[in-house]
């Protein structure tokens, strides 16, 4: 009890310090961005970037713009689609590799050889293969999360304490029951971790794919946040680039937070430590 209070105290001091650092950072950025108009000397790098105040103003203007929100919606849709597909395929595949040695021996090496190819290198091949651009973006997104999820599930399932399996066996459990009541819940924490990491990668891939492919078939507002940034760049409105970046940051953060909450819900026993 008392100790957690102690940590609370610490935490508040830490928070204060963190906020101080961020405020200083924003001030330097503001000064750097305006250095040319203020002093005539242009700060390297930062001097070329839009100032935070300008970004905030631009953002305020965008809040009422439906196409900005449409970009959010499209990106979320793609992330959700690719991620769900990766979960649906990756979890069973990882589990199956963990319990079936032959299958593992057959396909794990192939899997390992494909893995170092960065997901974005798949973009052109994917565009050729899939009938619509939307599907090809979804495919690349799926790939990004897929490897991580499979590896985490496989690792989790393989590192299950042997005693759990033996205890279940000696109580007369069937293979199916061991899978359902032991292997699955024991792997859940790794699934949660894998999906959190996978979610991060998914956002990376979606943004890049949106930029590279020019925003999908619908283009414009249907292009998602990645395309929003890219088109802002092409259109020369640099403030909007930063707005886009921050928006993606927020979106990514909320997706991970959502996953964390979900993970906590599915693994209640981990909270009791």
């Amino acid at each position, binding site marked *: 009890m008392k100790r957690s209070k102690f940590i609370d105290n610490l935490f508040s001091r830490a928070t204060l310090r963190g906020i101080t650092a961020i405020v200083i950072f924003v001030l330097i950025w503001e000064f750097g961005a305006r250095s040319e108009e203020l002093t005539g000397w242009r700060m390297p790098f930062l001097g070329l970037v839009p100032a935070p105040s300008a970004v905030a103003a631009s953002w305020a203007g965008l809040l009422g713009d439906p196409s900005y929100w449409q970009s959010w919606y499209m990106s979320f849709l793609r992330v959700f689609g690719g991620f769900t597909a990766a979960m649906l395929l990756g979890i069973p595949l990882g589990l199956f590799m963990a319990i079936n040695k032959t299958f593992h021996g057959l396909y794990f090496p192939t899997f390992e050889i494909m893995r170092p190819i960065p997901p974005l290198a798949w973009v052109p091949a994917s565009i050729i293969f899939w009938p619509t651009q939307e599907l090809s973006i979804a495919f690349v997104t799926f790939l990004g999360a897929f490897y991580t999820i499979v590896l985490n599930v496989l690792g989790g399932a393989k590192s299950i*304490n042997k*005693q*759990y399996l*033996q*205890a*279940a*066996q*000696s*109580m*007369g*459990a*069937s293979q199916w*029951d*061991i899978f359902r*009541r*032991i292997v699955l*819940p*024991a792997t*859940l924490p790794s699934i949660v971790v894998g999906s959190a990491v996978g979610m991060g990668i998914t956002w990376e891939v979606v943004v890049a794919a949106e930029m590279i492919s020019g925003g999908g078939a619908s283009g414009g507002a249907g292009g998602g946040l990645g395309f929003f940034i890219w088109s802002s760049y092409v259109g020369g409105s640099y403030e909007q680039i930063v707005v886009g970046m921050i928006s993606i940051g927020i979106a990514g953060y909320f997706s991970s937070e959502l996953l964390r909450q979900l993970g906590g819900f599915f*693994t*209640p*026993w981990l909270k*009791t*430590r």
Partner: protein
Amino acid sequence: MNTSTQDNFTANTGARVQEASEIVVSNVSKTYGSGPFSKTVIKDCSFTIESNKLTVMIGPSGCGKSTLIQLIAGFETPDTGTITMNGAPITGPGKDRLVLFQESALFPWMTTYDNIMYGPRARGEGLKEAAKQADFLLAKVGLEAFRDKYPTQLSGGMQRRAELARAMINKPEVMILDEPFRGLDNMSKELMWEYYASLYEEDRNTNFFVTTDIDEAIFLADRLLIMSNLPTSTRSVIEIDIPRPRKIDTLADNQRSNEIKKEVMTLLHEEAMKSFSGGSKAAADFLDAYSKRAE
């Protein structure tokens, strides 16, 4: 499993009388690995786990006791030799031989109650009876208040008691315990000894208990198997004729228990020394010189 046990079980919820169940280990050897890395863990090991007795096996740590448990439980098969239960060879794990593991193997994702109910649910047999029995056992091990808690919320001693309950609900013919009280502090340990002894004294099933603690061994055992260092075989068997029920207080003053302790300690100390020096020449010399000094 046979239905007569089931009937026995439902007839009286507490003590039950078991039919004879004896495990015979004869000339068993087991080697792990191959080539330059092979390691013979058990060599030519024979002993009997007698029916309706508490047999305790003691030996230095890392001496292959756990391997013997794996073999008896049927998780692994011996390279040579045979292990039979009531005359029939052991071919795989089964709920007639239930293992309680060293570190608690309670499933962390299940509450105490679900853990206890795991066996019956996994086999899908007599769930109603089992539920009643689970409540009875919960009360018996004093964990009613912790019915819906996860294992991490229980103290070490409570976890061991929950595990005892989880094993007992399966009515095993033979209960195998692999250093179940290791890692508990002295006080909880002694409480667990008394508790476990009283459970055993109630029904006198066949129990096989593995430990590295001499006091624990003497307190619990009907028969004591003393194992040698690697490769492991049976070094000596001692019948412990201290009357039951046993209590910590009475045993502390028991002359007989102290005599046994002296005897066991002499045997084991030698084996522990061997295990400690771990084959290192320098360490063996050191111990040699040391034991000479002590004389």
